[in-house]
């Protein structure tokens, strides 16, 4: 139903190439997340799929049919915007009903569909309110409601959670994931937050400067990053990178070590260092240690460890969990 295939899609604004030719396949029912730093072209790519931007070259097929030159409304997609883009002068009911009204449905059908959508999203009590009388999370739900009544072949989300506070973001993240389980419709989700990408995605597309760095499942990217960029971008806290003689000893220009693959000991180990900051989270402890040999490293230790700022400790990497990169930043396998 909702597969999306991009073949050599390119986008050029004036003489700036925002997206060099890209190939990408998103399978039906998949939750694909485009992730990357700001300005990496992930929103542009989404807008190309939506039809809000015209591709300079290449073809976009949706549902197996060529949609490159199709008007946005004809592509059978619906989109949730970063600002929600609710119509401020319409009630929640009219907002959700708008796409149905434009499609020329009978009033009875519209009412039934709006009611069903409102029930799915717990909006029943708010149908007669105006968007400005709603909280951020409720507005988000209305925007999603407006998207689902059309029963599209795929949903597009453009950083939908970035205007919410941290607690609400976690909750809405969960709700969107549940919605995906329930509807089983293809979803394409754009975010700059790798945590959102890791938690929600079936498939993550890591973008950098318009290029696709790597495509894969969250754990695939986590365990086998294709290059330094993906390695540094996926995972929190960030992967540590060590160069110089230590890397050369492993036959690489740079080696990367995840914070949880470093062990701390007071008595013995590879690298001696001083604790700069110890962040005690209860479940985990993050230690920032300035080592004499390998520079400043971030270390994640499970549970509580009785160390403090200024302590001298030894750090030992888990040799089996090293990531090696050559001088171009490509992973050596």
């Amino acid at each position: 139903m909702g597969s999306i295939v991009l073949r050599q899609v390119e986008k050029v604004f004036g003489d700036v190439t925002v997206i060099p030719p890209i190939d990408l396949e998103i399978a039906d029912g998949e939750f694909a997340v485009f992730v990357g730093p700001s300005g990496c072209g992930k929103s542009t790519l989404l807008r190309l799929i939506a039809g809000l931007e015209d591709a300079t070259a290449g073809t976009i097929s949706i549902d197996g049919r060529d949609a490159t030159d199709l008007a946005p409304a004809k592509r059978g997609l619906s989109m949730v915007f970063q600002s929600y883009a609710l119509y401020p002068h319409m009630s929640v009911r009219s907002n959700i009903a708008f796409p149905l009204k434009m499609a020329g449905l009978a009033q009875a059908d519209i009412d039934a569909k709006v009611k069903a959508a409102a029930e799915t999203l717990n909006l029943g009590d708010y149908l007669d309110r105006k968007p400005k009388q709603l909280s951020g999370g409720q507005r988000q739900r209305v925007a999603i409601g407006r998207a689902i009544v059309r029963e599209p072949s795929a949903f597009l989300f453009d950083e939908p959670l970035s205007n919410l506070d941290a607690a609400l973001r976690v909750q809405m993240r969960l709700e969107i994931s549940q919605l995906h389980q329930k509807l089983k419709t293809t979803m394409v989700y754009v975010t700059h937050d790798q945590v959102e990408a890791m938690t929600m995605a079936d498939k993550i597309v890591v973008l950098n400067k318009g290029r696709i760095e790597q495509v894969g499942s969250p754990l695939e990217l986590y365990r086998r990053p294709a290059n330094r960029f993906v390695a540094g971008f996926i995972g929190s806290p960030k992967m540590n990178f060590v160069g110089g003689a230590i890397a050369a000893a492993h036959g690489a220009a740079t080696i990367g070590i995840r914070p949880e693959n470093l062990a701390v000991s007071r008595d013995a180990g590879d690298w001696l260092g001083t604790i700069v900051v110890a962040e005690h989270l209860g479940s985990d402890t993050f230690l920032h240690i300035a080592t004499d040999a390998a520079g400043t490293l971030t270390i994640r230790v499970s549970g509580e460890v009785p160390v403090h700022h200024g302590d001298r400790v030894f750090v030992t990497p888990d040799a089996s969990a090293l990531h090696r990169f050559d001088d171009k930043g490509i992973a050596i396998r």
Partner: protein
Amino acid sequence: MSTQHSRAAARLLVAPSVVLLFLWMIVPLALTVWFSFERFNLLMPATREWIGLTNYRFFLTDPAFFAAILNTLLIVVGVLAITIVGGILLALLLDRPMFGQGIVRLLVIAPFFVMPTVSALVWKNMFMNPVNGLLAWLQKAVGMAPHDWLATTPLFAVIVIVAWQWLPFATLILLTALQSLDEEQREAAELDGAGAIARFRFIVLPHLSRAITVVILIQTIFLLSVFAEILVTTNGGPGTDSTNIAFLVYAQALLQFDVGGASAGGIVAVVLANIVAFFLMRMIGRTLEG
């Protein structure tokens, strides 16, 4: 923050300007009310005497008065209709990215800076003149008889001139409103399957409603008292065909030298303006709240 003491001091300090402004308003108003009850003709200053409501009876039963009220309303409604419809269309055009946008916008705003007397004279002599006017020349060029705007359709001519002056104002306000429309809302509507006309009807027009209300309010205040354009073009004529209330009061006072009658007319105009203002404020209060 402000204590009882400082509030009293504040009142004391603003008192002079408040008193001055109050006198500025109340003295002319009181004198006008006073004159409106007198027989007061500048040609016969010695015959001033109290005549009660006679001036009002004469003014309100004068056939010219009803013509003037109708003309005033026609000017207000006509100009509002032209400027709002034209203003929306122009604003939609100017909102498009184009070459020389800054200069084009400046040119569109220009008529607003031309004095009413000057623009009315330009229209009268260069456009609407049946012998030398541009419009007459255009008509002759296609073999039609030139239309004498000011003689045969004087009120329409005045409306056209005044609308030309106010079109930039409406365009400017509506353009800024248009630019404040969230781009994502437009795109969302596009994805929701709304075509260009549906987008205008359901997204753009509701967004513009506040700006339209503001244009209606401000223009109505000024359009009720259009005067210079009538004075330099038609002089209220032929007959009373293009006389509005403001011009009628002027004619009463300074052409017939009847200060008493003109004062009564002035008071009637004040009452009418307040009735209009009352309904306007109610309408606007509703729009601006929502």
